[in-house]
Each structure stands twice: as C-alpha cells, then as structure tokens.
C-alpha cells in the first residue's frame, strides 16, 4: 500500500517553488563567470537525483555529497575538455524514492538540458527515469540502482558503477547455503523494484544451491510493524531470514526478530548494509549479515583518505553509496576529457569504452552499461559496525 498523504500537494508546491528559486539562483551564478571568460571555460551541468526527503533521505544526501565532493575535486583540478577549462555544476533534485516523482524530476533535468545525470538512487525511480534520459539523449550513470532491468532495456545512455542484483543475488544465495549452511530460508521483501528484484534473484540462487524456501512474506517500504509477518516466519522455523529492502525496514525488523525470540540470523542486500541499520536495530543488530557490491572502503586504494575528506567536508560519516556517486561523476568527466567534448554523441562512445582506475574499482563497462567484474563483499554486524568477512569477484584499481 502506498498511502497518499494529504501533505503531498503542499510538499509539491513547496518543492516546486524551492526548485524555481534554485533554478533562478543557478542562472545568476553562472551568468557572471561565463561572461567574464567565456572563451576559456566550458560549463558542465550534471543533474543528480536521489531521495532527499522521506525515509531514505539519509542515503540520498550521502549520494549527493559523494557527487559534490567529486565536482569540487574536478573544479580544483581545472580539467581541460577540448582545450577549455571545465567548470562542473551540480543540479541536485529530490525524487522522494517515488517512481512518479522520479519521472517528474527526470523530465525537469531533460528540459534543463543537463550534460549528464548521476542517479537515481533507487531502482524503482532509476528505471522509469532512464527512458526519459534516453529519449532526451542524456547519459545516466546510477551509483546504486541494482535492478537488472535498468541496463537491459536497450538504452545506450544507461550505465551503472555498481554490481547488479543478478550478481549480488547469486553471491548471496551461494553464501547463505554453502557458507552459512542454511537449509530452510524465509524470504521477505518490500515489493519495490529493488527489494523484490533482489529477493527473486536470491530465491533462484538459494534454490539452485540446494536450500528450501519455506515462506515468502511481503511488506512495504513505509512499514514499521513486522510482528505479524515475523511470527509467520517463526512458524516455518527457518535457519536464515533474507530481507530484500532498505535499512529503514531492516533495522526495526532485526529488532523485532529478537523480541519474538527468533534465533535465526538475517541476511540483507546492499540497501541495509548501512551505519543507520545499527542505530535502528539497536541491540538486535549483532550477528546479521549483509552484502555490498564493491570492496570495503578500507580496501579501496584511496578509501581512508576519501573517508577523511568526506568527514571533514560534510561533518558526517559516509552512509553507503557516496564513493560510488563520486566515481559516477569521475567517469563522466573522464569520458568527456577523452572525447574532448561535452556533447553526448561525442563522449558516450568514450564512456562505453572507458577503462578508468576509479576510487571503488577499475571501471570498465560491458555492452549493456554494467560494470565489468563487479566485486561483492559480505559483512557481519558486530559491536555496532559491519565488519567485512570476504570479498568475492571484482578487480582492484590498477
């Protein structure tokens, strides 16, 4: 169920007026320097879309901060594109993790003729938006959408720097059965494109590895009460409970699992592999497992430096996808540099053929626009943090 809150018209109105103001401000900003030395600089406007309001606002802000950090770095480096100094600008938009809002802001960015889009965060918003960007000839790089459909619609403009659910689901399924020895598995998902997609892939992989799926239960991405479905899960006596969804549900769910005296651990995908999960789960956090495409931040070559710079700039810790949002901006900039142009027609082939040592991995795209050899790391919750267990697949930056 997706309750339509009465606040929506007002929120939309406020958002709209804020956007209008922001857009006006943007124009004033760019007008002055552009006029001063128009010959020497080229302005690149990158759209960024993620939920900045609602339950996933903390993740959305994290993505935006990652992108912002990349843009500040690029502007400081005075990158030359076609002999001109590149000046990057970020147009941050809020899609509220809502597919309808996602297409609205996508259309807005298309109308603004941005040079490329970084986003969206959720698969549910990324997929419908990708068509709008494709039709408008705008390159889109998602740092976090994992549903396979995104890159399988035949859109040459769609890229992602993150392993998809087919890869993640199969690793999780194999891990659950062979490493954790789970024979009876209960699966819950939040009925979003992401949660359902990941749960389906996990379902397939776990069955293929020899486990039995004892029950499949469903919730929504707004729910906080899981007592009833967890009781149902309890009745099937699973060895493991898999949840496909985000941390805002995974946290309370892990906590309620403990109050219902269910001893089985939970396994999550990337959406719950966050710092916030520990806060929300409280003392019910320990012992659960999650997977995250990519390698742990500490194992990235510039990982700890990135974390320190992020903390210094935004005065908060990285939640989840910020390094990937950073790389998403960097690969677009690199492709533009190599092509010597900010036109999609020119830099799109360069992006498709890119081989770039990013922060998170050596980034190369396959013919669909997915990252080649995406690594996936498994973590276990211990003492208030996720500690890395093992990394499967993937290539470190050269």
């Amino acid at each position: 169920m997706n309750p339509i809150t009465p606040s929506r018209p007002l929120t939309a109105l406020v958002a709209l007026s804020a956007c209008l103001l922001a857009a006006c401000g943007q124009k004033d900003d760019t007008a002055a320097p552009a006029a001063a030395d128009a010959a020497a600089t080229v302005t690149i406007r990158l759209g960024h879309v993620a939920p900045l309001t609602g339950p996933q606002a903390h993740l959305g802000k994290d993505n935006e901060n990652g992108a912002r950090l990349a843009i500040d770095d690029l502007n400081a480096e005075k990158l030359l594109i076609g002999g001109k100094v590149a000046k990057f600008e970020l147009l941050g938009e809020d899609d509220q993790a809502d597919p309808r809002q996602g297409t609205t802001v996508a259309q807005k960015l298309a109308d603004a003729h941005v040079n490329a889009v970084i986003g969206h965060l959720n698969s549910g918003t990324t997929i419908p938006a990708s068509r709008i960007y494709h039709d408008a000839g705008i390159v889109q790089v998602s740092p976090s959408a994992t549903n396979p459909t995104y890159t399988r619609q035949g859109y040459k403009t769609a890229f992602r720097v993150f392993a998809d659910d087919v890869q993640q689901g199969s690793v999780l399924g194999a891990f659950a059965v062979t490493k954790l020895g789970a024979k009876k598995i209960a699966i819950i998902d939040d009925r979003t494109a992401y949660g359902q997609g990941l749960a389906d892939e996990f379902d397939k992989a776990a069955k293929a590895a020899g486990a039995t799926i004892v029950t499949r239960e469903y919730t929504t991405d707004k729910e906080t009460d899981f007592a009833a479905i967890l009781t149902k899960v309890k009745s099937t006596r699973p060895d493991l409970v898999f949840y496909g969804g985000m941390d805002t549900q995974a946290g309370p769910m892990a906590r309620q699992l403990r109050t219902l005296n269910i001893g089985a651990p939970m396994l999550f995908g990337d959406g719950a592999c966050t710092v916030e999960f520990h806060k929300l789960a409280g003392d019910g956090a320990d012992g659960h497992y999650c997977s995250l495409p990519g390698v742990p931040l500490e194992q990235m070559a510039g990982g700890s430096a990135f974390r320190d710079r992020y903390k210094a700039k935004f005065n908060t810790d990285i939640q989840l996808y910020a390094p990937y949002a950073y790389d998403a901006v960097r690969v677009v900039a690199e492709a533009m540099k190599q092509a010597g142009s900010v036109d999609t027609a020119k830099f799109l082939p360069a992006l498709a053929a890119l081989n770039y040592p990013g922060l998170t991995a050596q980034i190369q795209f396959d013919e669909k626009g997915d990252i080649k050899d995406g690594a996936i790391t498994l973590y276990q919750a211990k003492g208030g943090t996720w500690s890395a267990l093992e990394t499967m697949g993937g290539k470190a930056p050269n």
Partner: protein
Amino acid sequence: MRLPSPGAARRHCTAQDTRRFVDILIQQIINGLVLGSIYALVALGYTMVYGILGLINFAHGEVVMIGALSALTAIGLLVPSGLPGPVVVLAGLLIAIPVCMAVGFTIERIAYRPLRNAPRLAPLITAIGVSIVLQQLAMMGWGRNYHTFPALLPVTAHKIGGAAITDLQIIIVLTAALLMAALVWLVTRTRLGRAMRASAENPAVARLMGVDVDRVISFTFVLGSGLAAVAGVMVAANYSIAHYAMGFMLGLKAFTAAVLGGIGNLGGAMLGGLLLGIIESLAAGYIGDLTGGFLGSHYKDVFAFFVLILVLVFRPSGLMGEKVAERA
C-alpha cells in the same frame, strides 16, 4: 560460521503440529493486542471529539506524532544525565503529555471554535489543513530523517508457551487498559463526565442547564491529546522509530477503528482498536495461506479496510453504534 541447524531431524507429528499452530496463533493475537491497544488509545481521541462536536479531527494522528517526537527530544536531553532508563522514558512521557495537550487545545481554539456554526464541511477541511500544517512544521523542526528511540526499556522476551511477549509490550497493553478504564470512570462517574455527556446529547440544552460547553469541548480535546501523547510514546518505544510522517497512517487506522466500533462511542473505540489490531495481525499471518499465495502479507491493510467496509454495509453505525445513550 556454519549455523546451528535446529530441528535438523524433522519429525512429522500431528500433536506437535497442532501445538505449534496454537503457539503461532497466540503469538499473532499478542501482536494484535499490542497494536490494537495503541489504535484504541488514538481512536478514543477521534471518538470523543466526534461524540461532542460531530467532527472528525483529522489532525489527531499528527498529535500522536508530536507526542512521539517531543518525548524523543526530551529523552535525548535526559539520557546523558545517567538516570535509569524507565525514569528517563517516564520523564519524556510526562513532558510529551502537556505538549500534546497544549497542541490539542490550540488546534481547537484556532481551527475549530471559529467554525462552530459553519456548515459541517468547513471544519472538516480545516482539520485536513491543520494536519498538513502540523506535519510540515514537524518536518521543519525535527527534520526528515527517521529518529531512533534509544534502548532504555527492557525488551526481554517472556515465553508464554511457544509465544513471546516483551516487558515493554506488557507495559503497553496494561497502560492502555488502565487509561481506558480511567477514561470510562471519568465520563460515567464524575461531574465533568456528566457535562461531557450532556454536551454530546444536546449542546443547547446543556448550555441552558449551566454547562460551559466551550470549556467541555476544550477539555475533550486536551484529554484526547493526552491519550495521543501516550500512544505516540508507545509507538516510538515499541518500534524504536519516530518520524514526521508517522501520524498519518496511524491516524487513519485509528479512525477506522473508531468507525468500526461505532464512532462517538467510547467502548466502541476500544473494541474497534483491539479488533483492528488483531485482524491486521491475523491477516498478515494467514492471508497468504488462505488465498493460496494469491494475496501476500503486504495486503494486511487492504484486509483491515475490507473488514471495515463489511461492517459498515451490515451495521452502518458500527459494532456498538446503536447505544446512543453511552455517547460521550
């Protein structure tokens, strides 16, 4: 890293299966009772106001949210003091109650009293307006993020047969029962309660008899808001989460509970709340099996509203709606 596998040797024993089925059923009913107690407390706020004014105070869910968030803020400030957990939560509750009462009083004064003699649609629209305003103010004040309720209360699970219930859940059910009993006593046994009942029955006559109807109405709002504050703290403590939009769905469910029981009727709100909680839990637990997997557990809300429709078709005034004399 290999997991212990309980029940590796799976036995097919019918007696055991039956016992397990009963255990799970009991667990679902406990889940429903906890949820239903919270619904009932909130539903009382709707039903009391409706009983006297014939108005649906759609902003009531937002009062619950303000109760949860203001308690959370107070608790956040008190945690460093090192007081024991339950004391801190109680202090948070004692701060949230007057805050909510003030909010409820203000809502009535600003949004409803000036429209006392306006067509019935007008106060309904202001009610929705107040709900939006409160939600947006809370978003500005408390931010858009989910706030977590610190683990201050014992959540040790007690076993009842195969079912589990935590201390916190026992406290929630008992507190709700105690508050409801106190409310019934207040309405049926005190002078003020008599004034409330009189105002509900016929405000004009009550006024002629010397009842200060405006004061009674203010008091009703204050009382309902106090209960909402308690419900808000219960929700936040039980699910360890609070955010600015939490009041909307909760308010809608509680309103449903009030209608289910017969709006305007105190006993009806309590019965409706408990029933709705239990229906939801059972629906989420069994709907998949009953429909052969056609409908999943995420349809529990649909199921709850479906039951409401059925009740309204066959008993338009709700389950206990006909006892007009008990209206308060």
